[in-house]
């Protein structure tokens, strides 16, 4: 870079008096026990990872108990009943309470630093997500201690998990317990999509974005499309258990395979949701240890995207043995092959990068874990290709071969990169680095232990040992293999123990560790404090620190963008999605109590519902909503005009309309809602192909007269029109806005009326949801639209309240816009539902 260019930095030095002090003050973390109100991504990130690690250890202990029971055949160390709970809680905890939260936690902690943003765009949302998850997760896990744990497997197949075969609250703990995990995941997804696409530093175009940001963006997009399927499935199962609506009961036209389709449509992307961020992290660490830019950067981006998409076409490979026609299976076998190619691309890119460094690849604890990951994940990928072949899967499915395969890809593919991450990025958040010496013990114990524990299980599986068995006969030749596996599992535990000791000795939150000890090139290694970087750098390459070794000093002196706090409160820069052109400055909230209270009451709502304490549960639900409203009331601060961020760029401090981060969050939520509704659409049509004999008009009461759906549609459309008209005629100046209040109330009333008419229309034909799967599906459509309507009505009243308190104008209109677009979405969903429910049987019958 020429001298002129380097001198041409956005802001001059030295910075004015007090600017740094104000920055520190505005971003300070609450002290003492008030830290629970903190929202800084580094603080939340550390709590999040700590919670995830805790669940990892807890679920690991369950695994040790399981392995002890299986060490010899015909064993009686634990009972059949306890074992069935153990493997269910182990799997559920590892998948839902450890794996997804861990990678999400890394996103929360690392992404803003890698993007030199001061925080995630919705700081209190991630704080809400983590507290709901911690409370709910701990309560869920505790059920193993008093015989209330679910025992249907982590995948909870009906009919086994229906009331008839799983009486008691155990299964409900899973169904409702996982509910709040789903909320946390989606909240995280919203943050990450908006964060990666809109809060990058100026100049960090899409092609210059770090690989981890790509991985997290794809992770978030996958959550958005995959989680709704399992949300619908859990809703259906819980409703069948609680109210008897026969979605999964064959005698009444239901089908247990419907659960499997919905669950695995989520479940397969789920494992790539877990793996992709880890692969992204590896792509950040390998170049550092090779001291050279990543070879095949574009290929890796493409590989991540392709994996993300193709992973949605694999789900039936978990159902190869259910008797589905062979040609269908072939489609999924083909897609399972296709998804192997991008993984291969990544592996060879990493190897090429290792070879490219001028010096030899540096061996440190993190790079050892990366090598371990390569070894284990490659083996897991190869067995994955094997089971993608349908005939081989006929033998391997539901045997210990699959147990071996899944642990190779998940532990190799995610846990090893996770441990590499701990050692590599610890200096970013801890005052001391972790110990190289203890770290080597951790690595070797875990690596050797893992292979000793899981390799023999491939053989045991093909030797006939099925999964989920609490014991096995000792004359089938499986004893030695199992004993070896148990020994290996205790070696892994020793390794994890070494790590925990290392953490206890060396990990202390705070700054003071060596700056950029590994010599990395990306922005998270710039000098950092509670406010992230002193100024937000202008980025011109993929490896900013290598290409401009002065960058850390420039940034620390405040020479780059936004070195101060022009609005007097927490802010960061919003940039355009592709070219990272600065667009505006977000005014972000700081620590608070409301999101914490919302999290506690949300968790309480779900958990109390599980034990059928309905009244208190509803009260907690209302308190959760109230907390959210108070929380939201504190957002949407008025515009403070334009502020100068440097380089002569003046940015607005309030944004309205489709480029506002708030609008983007609503769009993400609408996509989630749409994915949920489309899952429902699939379920309706699927059950019709299975049981056309229970459908109207043949097997059920005839549909209501056309007047009903037309009336419903008219009310929906009218409500939308009223809001649309109001959108164009919001007050110019802040005043007591009665017009908006009237519009909001009327639109809400129309929505309620529309849905009431729809439900009454079906009820008066004599159709009941418990009568058949058709009845259940008809009323389920209404349930989903009622669900959306409840959210919309709350938002409408909120906007009305803003209007009445003079906080709504043509410019300052985010609260109204959000309610309006979600209203339009609800209307669209409602109309589609009417078309399906009133149109399809008439067409098909």
């Amino acid at each position: 870079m020429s001298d002129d260019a380097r001198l041409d930095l956005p802001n001059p030095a030295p910075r004015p008096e007090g600017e740094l002090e104000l920055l520190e003050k505005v971003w300070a973390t609450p002290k003492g026990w008030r830290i629970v109100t903190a929202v800084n991504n580094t603080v939340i990130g550390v709590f999040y990872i700590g919670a995830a690690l805790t669940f990892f250890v807890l679920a690991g202990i369950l695994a040790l108990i399981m392995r002890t029971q299986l060490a010899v055949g015909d064993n009686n160390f634990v009972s059949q009943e306890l074992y069935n709970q153990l493997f269910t809680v182990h799997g559920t905890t590892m998948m839902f309470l450890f794996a997804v939260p861990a990678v999400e936690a890394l996103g929360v902690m690392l992404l803003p630093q890698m993007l030199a943003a001061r925080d995630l765009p919705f700081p209190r949302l991630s704080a809400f997500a983590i507290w709901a998850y911690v409370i709910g997760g701990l309560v869920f896990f505790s059920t193993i201690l008093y015989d209330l744990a679910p025992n249907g497997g982590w995948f909870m197949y009906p009919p086994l998990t229906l009331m008839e075969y799983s009486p008691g609250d155990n299964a409900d703990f899973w169904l409702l317990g996982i509910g709040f995990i789903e909320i946390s995941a989606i909240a995280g997804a919203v943050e990450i999509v908006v964060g990666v696409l809109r809060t990058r530093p100026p100049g960090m175009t899409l092609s210059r974005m770090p690989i981890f940001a790509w991985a997290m963006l794809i992770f978030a997009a996958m959550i958005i499309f995959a989680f709704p399927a399992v949300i619908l499935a859990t809703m259906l199962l819980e409703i069948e258990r609680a109210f008897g609506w026969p979605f999964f009961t064959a005698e009444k036209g239901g089908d247990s395979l419907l659960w499997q389709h919905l669950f695995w449509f989520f479940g397969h992307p789920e494992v790539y949701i877990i793996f992709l961020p880890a692969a992204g992290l590896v792509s950040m660490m390998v170049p550092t240890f090779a001291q050279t830019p990543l070879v095949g950067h574009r290929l890796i981006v493409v590989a991540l995207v392709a994996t993300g998409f193709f992973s949605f076409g694999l789900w039936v490979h978990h159902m190869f043995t259910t008797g589905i026609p062979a040609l269908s299976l072939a489609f999924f076998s083909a897609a399972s092959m296709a998804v192997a190619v991008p993984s291969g691309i990544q592996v060879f890119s990493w190897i090429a990068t290792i070879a490219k460094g001028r010096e030899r690849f540096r061996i440190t604890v993190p790079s050892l874990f990366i090598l371990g990951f390569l070894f284990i994940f490659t083996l897991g990928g190869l067995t994955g290709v094997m089971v993608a072949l349908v005939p081989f899967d006929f033998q391997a499915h539901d045997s210990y071969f699959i147990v071996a395969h899944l642990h190779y890809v998940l532990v190799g593919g995610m846990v090893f990169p996770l441990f590499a991450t701990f050692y590599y990025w610890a200096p970013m958040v801890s005052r001391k680095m972790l110990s190289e010496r203890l770290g080597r013990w951790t690595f070797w114990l875990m690596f050797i232990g893992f292979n000793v524990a899981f390799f023999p299980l491939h053989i045991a599986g093909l030797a006939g040992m099925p999964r989920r068995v609490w014991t096995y006969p000792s004359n089938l030749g499986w004893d030695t293999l199992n004993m070896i596996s148990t020994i290996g599992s205790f070696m892994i535990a020793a390794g994890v123990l070494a790590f925990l000791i290392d953490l206890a000795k060396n990990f202390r939150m705070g700054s003071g560790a060596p700056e950029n000890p590994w010599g990395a090139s990306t922005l998270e290694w710039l000098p950092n404090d509670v406010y992230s970087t002193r100024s937000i750098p202008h980025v011109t390459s993929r490896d900013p620190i290598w290409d401009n070794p002065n960058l850390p000093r420039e940034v620390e002196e405040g020479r780059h963008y936004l070195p101060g706090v022009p609005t007097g409160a927490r802010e960061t820069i919003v940039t355009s999605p592709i070219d990272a052109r600065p667009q505006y400055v977000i005014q972000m909230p700081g620590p608070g109590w409301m999101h914490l209270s919302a999290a506690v009451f949300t968790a309480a709502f779900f958990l109390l519902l599980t034990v059928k304490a309905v009244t208190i549960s509803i009260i907690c639900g209302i308190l959760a909503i109230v907390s959210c409203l108070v929380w939201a009331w504190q957002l949407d601060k008025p515009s403070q005009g334009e502020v100068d961020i440097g380089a002569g760029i003046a940015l607005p401090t309030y944004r309205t309309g489709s480029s506002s981060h708030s609008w983007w969050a609503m769009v993400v939520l609408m996509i989630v809602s749409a994915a949920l509704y489309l899952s429902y659409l699939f379920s309706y049509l699927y059950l019709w192909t299975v049981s056309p004999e229970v459908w109207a008009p043949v097997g059920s009461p005839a549909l209501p007269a056309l007047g009903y759906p037309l009336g419903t549609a008219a009310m929906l459309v009218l409500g939308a029109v009223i809001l649309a008209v109001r959108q164009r005629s919001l007050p110019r100046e802040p005043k007591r806005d009665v017009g908006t209040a009237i519009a909001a109330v009327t639109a809400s009333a129309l929505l309620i009326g529309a849905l009431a008419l729809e439900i009454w229309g079906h009820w008066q034909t004599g159709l009941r949801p418990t009568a058949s799967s058709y009845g259940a599906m008809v009323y389920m459509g209404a349930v989903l639209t009622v669900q959306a309507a409840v959210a919309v009505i709350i938002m409408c009243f909120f906007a009305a309240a803003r209007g009445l308190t003079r906080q709504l104008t043509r410019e300052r209109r985010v609260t109204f816009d959000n309610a309006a677009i979600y209203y339009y979405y609800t209307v669209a969903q409602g109309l589609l539902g009417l078309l399906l429910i009133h149109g399809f049987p008439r067409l098909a019958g």
Partner: protein
Amino acid sequence: MMHRLARLLWLASGALALTACAGEQSAFTPKGIEAERIDTLFWVMTIAGGVIFAVVAGLTLAAMLGGPRLRAKIASEKLVIGAGILFPVVSLTALLFWGFMLMRAGEATEPSAIRVSISGERWWWRVTYEDEAGRTVDTANELHLPVGQPVTLTLTSPDVIHSFWVPQLAGKLDMIPGRENILTLTATQPGISRGQCAEYCGGAHALMSFYVVAQEPDEFRRWLDAEAGAARPPEGAEALEGQRLFAAHGCGACHAVRGTEALGTIGPDLTHVGSRHSLAAAALPNRTEDFARWIRDSDHIKPENLMPPYRIFSEEELAALAAYLEGLR
């Protein structure tokens, strides 16, 4: 270091495989047509996979430790495209289509003479034969097959999802409430294989197994004729006493013994239970004393199973019942 470790692991596992190989429930010793096809596929994929793994490990080591010219060759996007895209495209296309051909090979060409309905129930197997003449024979927890002749199994379940798996003969197929799944088994040699439920069905899933006896065709016919017949009358005073106790305590309400008044269909058919290879869905061997143990302690042997334990009988009464049931060959 890693390379040495990898080699050690392969050697060790090879040795271990030999010990597990010869089990009666092992896919490594196929004795049926589908299992043999899959076994070939398995070995080809395993060897190919091993070679690929060795290459990847070798490349990694070379990238780390090799000389500058070797490392320069590895450090190119060309390697990534060649090894990461071109090689997989070629090899996976071949593999995928081989897989399709193997699937196609499962197309039954001739209708099978013998049809068997197997219903997986918590936690045992209801087996019903139907021959060409339309004669049906009810039995439980054991399957007999004629060697070399395809047998069509119709798999169902009245309660939860189970899965029928005899690794030596074929891959598994699920038993799903509301559906009928068809599996055609052809044994290639006489012998006894063991199978087990392979879909978690709660409770005593781990103890839901069965035996498959492959016999020469005429021997199979003789067996089927014998199985179709009524129960043998009890011989000896002890067995007679056992029959009396059986009837007196209502065992016939759940269990059928053809030729007597016991006609219950809730539990397994016991008409020829004495000749079976095992008891309680392979949870127990078939010896006289095991009958007694089961009647008294079924809830300890197979927790949560749906037959109540009978601790009301004295030692002599249990011996009598056992003698009676053992005699039902």
